[in-house]
């Protein structure tokens, strides 16, 4: 390079740079694209809000007939005499869901830990697919399995629990005589407990997926740190994996609870409906709001249907709270930023 070229360049007439106008407004083709996509958003919003609004409107008829407080505290479901309420069905729904979650959480947590910590590496992806497959098995199949196979296996367990732990109120069964070997097993069938076990098998994979996702995100450095300090595997899990995954464990549990509350077909197949509150979970007979809807939807199309809508709305309110709490826990946890639950 010589000096003269530099001078040449400098003397070239350069226009004064004007900053380009930046606009965030969409123009031309983008505007129509965006309009189209927004329409789909609006349609979805309209459908969803429409469903919610319709449920509420339909429910008001029954609610105004008996009053909100009466509706929440009445156990019976007698439409003709205008005496109906969700006290019993809601209690049974919650009981089934609680039994399910109590059984499912240890199993799902153990399975998630097994997949992330214990299983050999080559087996992991297969196990992950199996858990996903378990989540995809239709609920009617679980229901058939529970009714035809599980019930026969669980009745002796119920009898045993009642015999030895009958002094604990929830394991007590009225009308069962533990001392008589000839007593009919029918006092133990179709119970909250059996429905709960079946629902547990259905929510287990849902919880497991969330927990495994979180456990697999535990920072490698922290794992290795624990090992380097001489920890055993369980020691590492206790001080690193479980605290890190706490949000995922709570969130996954509640997500499963939400699903357990709304489960219909498996519960309909197993329980025999009853409308008096009992906290003895091993006793025959149970109920749930979704089972109530499935059994009674075509009976009384006026007030009865409205009452079912009110019951469904109450169920929806509960699952909504549970689900939002779940996502709140997952999002606030250390691991939650990128997980999808």
């Amino acid at each position: 390079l010589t000096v003269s070229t530099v001078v040449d360049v400098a003397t070239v007439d350069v226009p004064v740079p004007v900053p380009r106008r930046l606009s965030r407004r969409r123009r031309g083709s983008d505007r129509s694209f965006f309009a189209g996509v927004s329409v789909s958003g609006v349609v979805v919003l309209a459908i969803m809000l429409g469903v919610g609004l319709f449920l509420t409107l339909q429910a008001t008829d029954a609610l105004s007939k008996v009053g909100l407080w009466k509706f929440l505290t009445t156990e019976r479901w007698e439409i003709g005499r205008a005496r109906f309420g969700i006290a019993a069905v809601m209690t049974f729904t919650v009981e089934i869901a609680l039994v399910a979650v109590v059984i499912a959480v240890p199993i799902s947590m153990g399975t998630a830990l097994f997949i992330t910590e214990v299983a050999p590496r080559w087996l992991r992806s297969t196990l992950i697919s199996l858990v996903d497959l378990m989540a995809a098995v239709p609920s009617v199949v679980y229901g058939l399995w529970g009714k035809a196979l599980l019930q026969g296996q669980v009745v002796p367990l119920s009898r045993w629990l009642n015999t030895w732990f009958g002094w604990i109120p929830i394991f007590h069964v009225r009308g069962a005589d533990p001392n008589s070997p000839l007593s009919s097993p029918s006092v133990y069938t179709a119970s909250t407990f059996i429905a709960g076990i079946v629902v547990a098998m259905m929510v287990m994979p849902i919880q497991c997926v969330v927990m495994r996702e979180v456990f697999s995100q535990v920072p490698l450095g922290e794992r290795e740190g624990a090992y380097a300090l001489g920890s055993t595997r369980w020691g590492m899990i206790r001080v690193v994996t479980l605290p890190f995954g706490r949000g995922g464990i709570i969130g996954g549990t509640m997500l499963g609870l939400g699903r357990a509350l709304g489960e219909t077909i498996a519960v309909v197949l197993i329980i025999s409906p009853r409308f008096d509150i009992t906290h003895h979970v091993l006793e025959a007979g149970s109920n749930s709001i979704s089972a109530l809807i499935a059994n009674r939807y075509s009976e009384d199309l006026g007030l009865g249907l409205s009452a079912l809508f009110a019951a469904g709305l109450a169920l929806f309110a509960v699952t909504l709270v549970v689900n939002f709490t779940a996502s709140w826990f997952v999002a606030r946890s250390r691991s939650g930023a990128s997980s999808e639950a």
Partner: protein
Amino acid sequence: MNVASVSDRHALADETTIPFRPGPPTRPQERRRTGTVSRQDAMYMLGAGISSLSTTMLIFGRLTSLHGKLGFYVVALLIYIVVYAVLVSLTENRPAVIDRVMTVLVTTCALIAFLALATVIGYTIFRGWDAIFRSNTYLQDLSRTGPQDGLDRGGIKHAIVGTLIMISLTLVFTVPLSVACAIYLNESRSRASGFVRTVVTAMTALPSILAGLFIFSAWILTLGFQRSGLAASIAVSIMMLPIMIRSADVVLRLVPGNLREASAALGAPQWRTVWHVVLPTARSGLMTSVILGVARGVGETAPVLLTAGYTATINYNPLKAPMVSLPLTAFELVRSPLQTQITRGFATAAVLMILVLILFSAARLLGGRPAGHHTKRQAKRATAHSRRDLVRMQARTRGMGR
């Protein structure tokens, strides 16, 4: 350097002790095992297993009057854990014993889960076995089958056809809408899209039976339409829509930001970025989310129960007359007291499960590929495309040169 200092160093060197150096290893070095299960552990496990089995067999029937399969396994497991813990504590310290016991417990949990899955699948096929391998199961409906007829007459063709029609309709309703809505949620980060996202998240909590009750009341009672396949597919769509939007949203969010930015930097308008960069990158993930959504929708019984009606005859018209799906047929058949009907019900459930299994494997084959990783064919197509682009650009620069 002078001579004296050299001799000094010699003197010093004489006093140096040479450290002991081991010669070449006398035997080949052994690789240290880093595995977690040693031979001793395996022997402990075996010993504890044999001990617990024999003790449990002794307890059951001999010493006490315990009986029942479930109880047997539970007692055997408890004894196994105790014996194993005692064996390990002979040589190891407390933390190691706790570690082994917890490993056994965690493995047991996984075993229970996978055993449950195996029995769910195995038992359904076992109970339906007599009907699964008969051609009439797939080629006939139940309209001319009386209660006395055996399994060699009648089948579930009507349910298979019904399921296929309903799920196709559901796909037509949900896939375009959910993908478009997911794009909207991703491309517009405004307050409005945040609201839509919140509402969609809320609706994933909608119990499926309520979707059915909604269609039953709004579509059938208020608007006066018949119970039909269409009504059922609308109900399933309402249930599936929020689920599919959410999973599509997650998949689209996984598309790397630098791909979008590169496209924007090359001057592409937003819709071109979405069409040519975002969607192709997320294609396999979207396919997976759609297929898993379909698997969920196929197995849904509750909304169909309220909206489709029940029929034993085949019906190809989703607009008119009742139409059944596989899960609904299984549900109705199993509630019958007749043994043949129950067997048919289990066979229906088995067919449904095989359908779900096929959909699921398809999802695994198509998906599971992270964004931007191409299959062989996709890579070939992309290469061919860029080669064409190169030729086009070269032709243009040559034209400009002249």
